[in-house]
Structures are given as structure tokens and as C-alpha cells.
């Protein structure tokens, strides 16, 4: 298969996945906006869970299954498309929830439709309404559609393990087989060009959307009673496909493989390498995104920061493979060659890869955060009464710092489990555990491998939980320091 064919196949699949996912994202969004209390928490949990499933876990879980479909490539492609669909649906839903309302509300659109006489021809109706739909509901759908398309288009780790077709696999294989980096990058221009065209077209639309945002949602008409249960079925299917089944498969063979952990102390060092690089990249990426945040929030007088934010965030939007290959090429130039076999290329690429995600997380947190409740907790913290001050601290932690903590944990989770960038850029002797295990996965499932994968995935989870009390302790100290300095 040629690159063009692989690109075409990936493009088609990504477009279909995004197009199918968009209406579902908005249907879920309506449910999320009307749900309250525990029901809302449960719904959010079910929506987001599939997105956090490590690709290597999912791919590993279905490795044998996809092999069994070797004589039915179309079925395998469909199966992979389904996995990608459930993987990107949560992202699209989050974007749908956070996208500003379009300037033309559903009510406004309906009013326009009412104004068209009954005897108008279909062509006249289309001509008069097309602009309204583009400025209305379609505009609201675009950011979600584009992001889902990009994620589906540039997906690499999962497609590689389930033996489906993608330009990413084609390109990586070519590079792994010895194709010169410059040639590889020239091949990369086609898929990158496709993504760039879409991204560049979207940026002004997103910036304009923030300025032209419409009013809040008004209650809509009655929705079919079937929709709710169908959506729940869909979401549970996603969780099952991307978590329960792979974890079940992993667990089934793990018991026999636990002994491998004892015989493989190197694994622990590789886990530490992975975590160390993760933290060193995630924290600066988050901090840098925080500096650029006023630009993302479109405050006046921030045009320079907005430009820097766009430039800094662009490389990460093209996926780990393109970014890794580009970085590899850069560090093979004469100017940077002496840094080639150091952690710098890997670290730099990881920061750039995380940056758009960090900015998105910052924007989402800022959108969810309200300043008044925080100020009210701060007022209480300035009370002359020690009991009131003590009660204010956990409130402030929850409102101000907790979101940041979990955002950094999330960035660490993504960067830790990425095998692509370290495959291309790590220095000799510095192998992170996820990358090594990912490489082993291409040779099939085994008990020992299952145990190693389980440990590799569990360690950061336990670490995040263990660090939480420390973070809660540090935050009030920071607060006191700030209060004294004022």
C-alpha cells in the first residue's frame, strides 16, 4: 500500500468517525447540562473514562483478536474505527460542552424558518437558511469535529497494535526500516498538510467564536424518551470496549507472569525514568500554558501572547509521530547535533506535544472556575478568628488548587504512556518502561508482559494518590506566603 492510499484510508476513516461522533457529542452535552448531582457526576465519569484508557493497554488487549481477523481486513478496520470512535467521543463531548454558544441560537434559527413562506421552493429555502445554519449549529459543531478528526487522523499507538491501516504506521515503518529522515519528513508533508489546512482554517473561527458568542441555552422541546437509554448504552459500551475487556484480558494472564517482576528489577528503573521525564516535561508545559492563558481567554491587550500561544501550541497539534520526526531531524543538523544523544530532544518534543493539551486544560479549568466563590473563601481566610481561617483552607484547596493538581497529573499520564517520542528521541541507556513494553507487545500477549504492563500503568496512579495529601499541605503554605507578601 502506498502512502497516498494509507493517507486516503485514514482520512476517510477519520472523517466518518468525526461526522458520526458530532451529533452524539451534542446529544450527550444536552444530557450533561441538564443532569444534576450524583447523576451528573456519574454521567461525566462514564463519558470521560474511555479517553483515559492507555492505548497500549487497549491495543495489547485486542492484539490477538485483531490477529484473528487477519483474513477479514475490512472487519478489522471497522473494529479499529469503533475503538477510535469511542476514544475520541469524550474529547468531542468536552469541547461541545465548553464551546461558546453560536451567535444564532436554536430559537433564532427557528424564527428565521418561520419567516419563510410555505410556498418557497427548496432551493430558496436552502439559500435563505444555509447561512444561518453555518453561523448557528454548524459553527458550534466545528471545534469538536475538528479536534476529533485530528485525534483520529494522527493516532498511531493503537493502530499499530491492532494491525489496521494508517499513514502513521506506514511512515514509522519506513523510517524504522532505514529511510533517511529527510525523505521521511517529505513523505510526512502530505498528512501534515492535510492537518495544517484544517487547523489553520479553524484558528480564526475559534477566535471569532469567542467574541461572537451567543446567549445561554434555553430549554428545548421534548426529546424522545429512547434517546437517554441509547446514550447510556453507548457510553457503557465505550467503557467496556476500552477498559473492562482489555483489563479483563490483561488480568486473566497476569497471575503467572508476576514472577517476571521479581526477575526484572530493571523495569523499576525504567518506570522511574519514564516518571522522571514525565514530571520534567509536564510541569513546565503547564506553567508555560499558564503564562499564555490570558491570550487564550481573549483579554484585551494580549495580542502578542495570543500569537505566541498559537505558535507554541501548533507543533503539538500534529501528533507525536510528526513532532518526533521533525525534532529528530532538527537535532541531526550541525547546529544541534551535539545535543542529539541527550535527554533534550525528547524533553523538548514532549513539552511541545503537551503544550496544546496543557492550554486546553487551563482553558477548561478557567471556564469551570468562578472567581466569586474563591474570593469569598479568601475573605474568610482573612478573618481574625482561627476557626474560620481553618475552615477556609480546604474550601480554597478545592476551588483553586485541586483542578491544577489533577490537570498536571493528567498531563503526566499522557506523557508517561506515550511510546512514540521516546522511541524516536530518547538517548542511549534511558529507556522508559512504557516504550519498552510497547515494543514487546508487537510480539504477542504473555503473562509476564501483562504483569509488567499492569505495574507500569498502576505506578503513576498510586503515586498521584499518594502525592495528594502532600499537595494539600503545600497549597496552604503557598497561600500564607502570598498573604504575607501582600
Amino acid at each position, binding site marked *: 500500500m502506498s502512502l497516498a492510499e494509507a493517507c486516503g484510508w485514514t482520512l476517510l476513516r477519520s472523517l466518518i468517525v468525526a461526522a458520526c461522533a458530532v451529533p452524539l457529542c451534542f446529544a450527550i452535552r444536552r444530557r450533561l447540562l441538564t443532569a444534576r448531582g450524583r447523576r451528573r457526576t456519574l454521567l461525566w465519569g462514564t463519558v470521560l473514562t474511555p479517553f483515559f484508557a492507555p492505548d497500549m493497554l487497549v491495543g495489547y488487549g485486542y492484539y490477538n483478536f485483531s490477529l484473528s481477523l487477519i483474513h477479514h481486513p475490512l472487519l478489522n478496520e471497522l473494529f479499529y474505527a469503533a475503538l477510535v470512535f469511542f476514544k475520541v467521543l469524550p474529547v468531542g463531548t468536552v469541547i461541545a460542552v465548553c464551546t461558546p454558544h453560536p451567535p444564532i441560537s436554536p430559537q433564532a434559527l427557528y424564527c428565521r424558518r418561520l419567516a419563510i413562506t410555505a410556498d418557497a421552493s427548496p432551493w430558496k429555502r436552502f439559500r435563505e437558511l444555509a447561512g444561518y445554519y453555518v453561523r448557528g449549529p454548524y459553527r458550534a459543531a466545528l471545534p469538536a469535529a475538528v479536534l476529533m478528526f485530528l485525534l483520529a487522523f494522527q493516532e498511531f499507538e493503537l493502530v499499530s497494535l491492532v494491525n489496521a491501516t494508517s499513514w502513521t504506521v506506514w511512515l514509522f515503518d519506513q523510517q524504522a526500516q532505514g529511510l533517511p529522515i529527510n525523505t521521511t519528513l517529505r513523505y510526512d508533508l502530505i498528512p501534515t498538510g492535510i492537518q495544517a489546512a484544517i487547523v489553520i482554517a479553524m484558528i480564526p473561527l475559534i477566535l471569532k467564536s469567542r467574541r461572537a458568542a451567543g446567549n445561554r441555552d434555553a430549554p428545548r422541546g421534548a426529546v424522545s424518551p429512547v434517546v437517554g437509554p441509547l446514550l447510556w448504552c453507548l457510553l457503557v459500551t465505550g467503557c467496556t470496549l476500552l477498559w473492562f475487556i482489555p483489563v479483563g484480558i490483561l488480568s486473566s494472564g497476569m497471575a503467572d507472569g508476576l514472577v517476571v517482576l521479581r526477575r526484572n528489577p530493571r523495569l523499576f528503573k525504567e518506570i522511574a525514568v519514564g516518571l522522571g521525564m514525565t514530571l520534567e516535561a509536564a510541569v513546565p508545559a503547564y506553567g508555560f500554558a499558564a503564562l499564555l492563558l490570558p491570550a487564550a481567554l481573549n483579554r484585551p491587550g494580549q495580542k502578542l501572547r495570543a500569537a505566541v500561544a498559537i505558535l507554541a501550541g501548533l507543533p503539538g497539534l500534529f501528533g507525536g509521530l510528526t513532532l518526533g520526526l521533525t525534532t529528530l531531524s532538527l537535532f541531526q543538523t550541525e547546529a544541534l547535533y551535539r545535543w542529539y544523544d541527550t535527554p533534550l530532544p525528547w524533553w523538548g518534543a514532549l513539552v511541545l506535544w503537551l503544550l496544546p493539551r496543557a492550554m486546553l486544560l487551563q482553558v477548561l479549568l478557567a471556564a469551570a472556575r468562578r472567581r466569586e*466563590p474563591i474570593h469569598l473563601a479568601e475573605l474568610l481566610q482573612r478573618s481574625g478568628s482561627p476557626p474560620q481561617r481553618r*475552615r477556609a483552607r480546604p474550601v480554597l484547596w478545592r476551588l483553586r488548587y485541586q483542578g491544577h493538581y489533577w490537570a498536571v497529573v493528567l498531563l503526566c499520564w499522557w506523557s508517561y504512556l506515550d511510546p512514540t517520542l521516546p522511541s524516536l528521541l530518547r538517548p542511549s541507556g534511558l529507556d522508559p518502561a512504557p516504550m519498552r513494553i510497547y515494543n514487546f507487545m508487537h510480539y504477542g500477549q504473555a503473562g509476564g508482559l501483562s504483569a509488567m504492563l499492569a505495574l507500569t500503568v498502576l505506578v503513576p496512579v498510586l503515586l498521584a494518590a499518594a502525592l495528594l495529601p502532600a499537595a494539600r499541605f503545600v497549597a496552604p503554605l503557598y497561600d500564607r506566603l502570598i498573604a504575607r507578601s501582600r
Partner: protein
Amino acid sequence: MSGLLWTLNDVTLPGTERPRLEGVSCDISTGVTAVIGYSGAGKTSLLNLLAGFERPTRGRIERRFDDTGQRLPLYWVPQEDGLWPHETAAEHLQILAAGIADAPARVEKLLSEFDLIDKSDVVPDLMSQGERARLSVARALAGGAAVLVMDEPLVHVDPARADKYWRVLRNHLTQTDTSLVIATHSPETVLREAEHALCLKDGRLLHQGPVEALYYRPETPELAQFLGAANWLPPQEAQQWNVASPPESPCLRPEQIEIRPIAESPLVVETAHFSGSIEEVELLNEDSHMRRTFFHRPAENRLRRGARVAIHVCLLFLAALLSPGCDKDDEPLLKVLEVNYWMSPPMGAKIPRPRGLGIGDNDEVLCLDNGGRLLVFDEHGKLLRQWEMPEHIIGKPEGVCLLADGRIAVADTHYHRVVYFDEIGNVLSYQGSEGREDGQFLFPVAICQDDAENIYVCEYGGDHRIQKFTAAGKHLLTFGTFGTGDGQFQRPSGIVWDDGRLYIADAINNRVQVFTDSGKFIEVLGEKTGGLALEYPYDVALDRSTKSLYIIEYGAGRVTKTNLAGQLLGRYGKTSRENDGFLKPWGLAIDSQHRLRIADTENHRIVELKL
């Protein structure tokens, strides 16, 4: 805490098309200050600055009350409630009440007062907008802050219940000596709650000063509009419309004029829209062919299109304008030989405010206060005994009277009943229940007894009426309705009987009305003797030996003495925190030694004037 809270100097906050605040300079004092203006005037911006939520880009805000000891200095109720999404209603209050004495009881009480008991374990996300608004206010009260800043509090609460919550807030402010700054565009809220006003328009400060001055003597028609409907009538216009020109201010509020049908007049009603408390009437002057809209406050919807009318200015209000709380030089002074006072005894950490007064046996002073207590002092001010009302969480009683048979009758206002005690505070009986029927009460507020031992009870809820009972409680008579006409009342809050006549303090109508004790209207006190200017007469007492009436004026902070015809014999006092006047006095009584006892409410004391 007294004095200034903030000083603002040329404060500016930028906006998108124009500054949200521009060059605002003012002082904000203790007490209740209302920031008034239409949408977009800058109210929220100003309050955000006061709360420290925003900082000005230019100018200075100086806060003058940081040193409040263990007390939380300031708390805030933002426009969007500012609730913590993960905390339940009870937890919100518990956090603020941490370390305060009796915190659990306080939390429970606030939840009850704001009707949030059944939402105690509910997070804000599951509450309605009105419930969130109430919780936001309750939270601010729970913290016991010295200063509260509230941005349109309770605006999302249905009007039928909002009054109740405002009462809770008001009581909290007075009981805890808390100052309040509120932003509102409701004139009724300003008039009811605030002492000072700041008027904003397009980010600029147009006016600051007492609410009363803004209401009765605004400098421009635009300022008049800040506090609701007004008839702006400079002398030429007043003449064109055949209205007696007011001497001090061209502003006549709806309650200050009356549009009455008459047989012949060039003024014809074009339209009349009655909205309950105000009627908007468009008149055509057939002589000049001019049209103009007037606002007046009729008791009922009477005017019809085509009716011929005349505009009357209420003399009493004019008189009130002529003497806005200060003695005129040509008015006689009440001769007072000696002034003494004693402070209201504390109730825990609080010092309640005295309200209703009566005279008991041996010239004992019976005093009702806003701690729900009935205090009995001897004639020299020594506390002899006291007891609390059986219930007083909802509200406190306001009227007390010693009956001929030795019982002490208390108008238990917010429980809509009369409670009878013996001399040591044992409850002997209850009379009445909530309702409008004969024998039922809506906010009974004053009681007196005649020589035949009949009991008269004044009420200001619903019909604003007087009911007459035998000593045994049998209903005899009801008279009076709500309104401004002869024989009508707006808050009849004091009553005294003499020789077949009742003298009733008609507080909001600024007059004392005289009736027979069979309920027939006789006259407005003073109308035959040249008029008697009063400012919210809250109570009236009679010196039987001299046949002199004493009237305590809540609005003017003074005592007025008249004869039974209403001729002015003297005045004493002014609005003051010192010893030369009173601050919002509620009640008075006179004993057999011609000693006047005055409940100087806001000064937390009982004042004795030896005449």
C-alpha cells in the same frame, strides 16, 4: 462601630465601551447604605471594589475598619451568589460560623429563618435560584462580619416571601451592630432599609446623602426618579395644574398628592392605571390643552376616563417638608426639667433595643424590647424583673398595656395574638389567631384600655384597623381600613383613650386621627388648629391630669406635645445619638408624676423626661 467605613478618591474602573466607574469620590458611613442606579450604572463594579474583588485602575479606596478583633471584618454577597459547589447548605453556614459561640444553633436558626431546613444536605447545583440567593445571604449572616456588602440580595426570591427575609436581615444588623452596603434598583428596598444613598449613572456618582433627603428633597427630576415615581412640579407648572406650590421642593411623591373627582374642573382624566400602591393618571388640562402624567397613592381604583378631578397636596406632608426633622425657631419648645436615661440591659453579648412602653403599678415602667423580653423597671430605672415572650423567633412584640384587672396585655405582633401575663410573667391566656376576621389579628401593634375596661387593639397587617373587645375578650367592634383618607390608616401604631375618644397614631400617614370609641371618625388631630406636622408618629400617650397628648415621632426623633384639639404646645428632641434627642424612637408612656418615658430604640436606651 461608628464613623466611616470607606473613603473613595477618584476611583475608576475600565470597561469595554466606557469606564464602568469614572472618578467616583465619596465616603461610606456605618449603617445601611444603598447604591442605586439602573442596569449598567456601575453598582456591581462599585461593590466589587468595596469587597476587594476588583481593584481600581486609578484612584484610591481606603478601608477604615480593618481592626475588628476576632470578628470577620467583611463579607460579601455577590450578584451570582458565589456559593461553593461542593458544600451543602448546612456546610456553607458551618464554615462561616466556625468558632462563633453557639454555632450549631446559629446555623439551625439561619436555615430555619431562610426556609432552607429541608435543603440542609443539598448542594447548590440542586437548588433553585431563589434558594441559592437565600443561602448566599444566610451564609453572610452566619459569619458575623462587621460589614456586609450585598449585590442585589434576595432579588431572585419571590416578593411574597422576600419581606420576611429582609426582616431577618434587618434584625441581624440591629442586633449585631453590623453595617451594610447594598446595591439595588428597587426604590422600595432603599426606602425601607437604607439610611444613606449613593446614586450612580453611567459609572459616575450623581448624588450621595441621606435617603430621606433624596426622597423628599431631590435636587433634580433625574435624582427624584432614583427612588420611584415622583411628580416634579416647579412653581409655574404647579400653577398650570392648579396645585398648591410646595415651598421647599418641587418634588411631590405619590403619597403627597391626592387626585380626587370633583364636579367642575378643567382637569380631565385621560387614562388611569392602578397598580395597587400607585396610580398613574394622565390628565388633560382643557384650558391649556396640556397633558401630563401624575402619580398618586389612592386607597382604591376610583378614577375613570373622563372624570373631572382636582389635585390636592397633603398638608401634613407639606408641613413635614417644612420641618424635616429639625425644630423650627418659631415652634415652642417642650420644657423639660431633667433628662435621665438608662441603657437597655444586656442579653448575653447583645444589647437589645427597647420598643414598646407602658406604665405599670406604682409607676413601674413596662418595656418590650427586640430581644423578645418584657422588662419591668421601677420608676428610677432599676430592673425589677423580666421575662421572655413564649415565642419570639419569628418576631418581637411591639405593644404593652397594664389592664385595670392587673393583667399585662402584650400585642405579640408577629404571632398575631395578644398575650396576657400576670405581674410576674406567667402567661394567663392568649387571644386571637392569624387572620382578617373579627377577633383575629394581622400584626397587632398597640393596645389600650378605656374606663369601661374595653380593650382596643391596633393592627397594621392586612386592613390596618382597630378592634374593640370586652375585658373578657368578646369582640365588639372593628373600624378602619388601609388608606390615606379620613378614617383610614397606614400603620396605626399607637392608641390612647380619653373621655369617649380614641387618639390613634397613624404612622405612615404622618398624623394622629381622632375617633369616638364607637369607631366614628371625628377629625385629624390639629386640622382645625392650623395643622400639625408629624414625621412618622409611632406612639401616643395622654397626661390625664393636664389633658395633654404626647406623640413620639420615629422620623423626627422627637416628642411633640399638643392639647386634645391638636394645638402644638411644644417639641423636644431631634434625630441624635447624643442626649439632645432620640434615634428612631418607637414608644412612649407617661406616669402619674408627669415623667415621660421614651423608648429611644436605636440608642438602646430608655429616656426619662421630667416635665
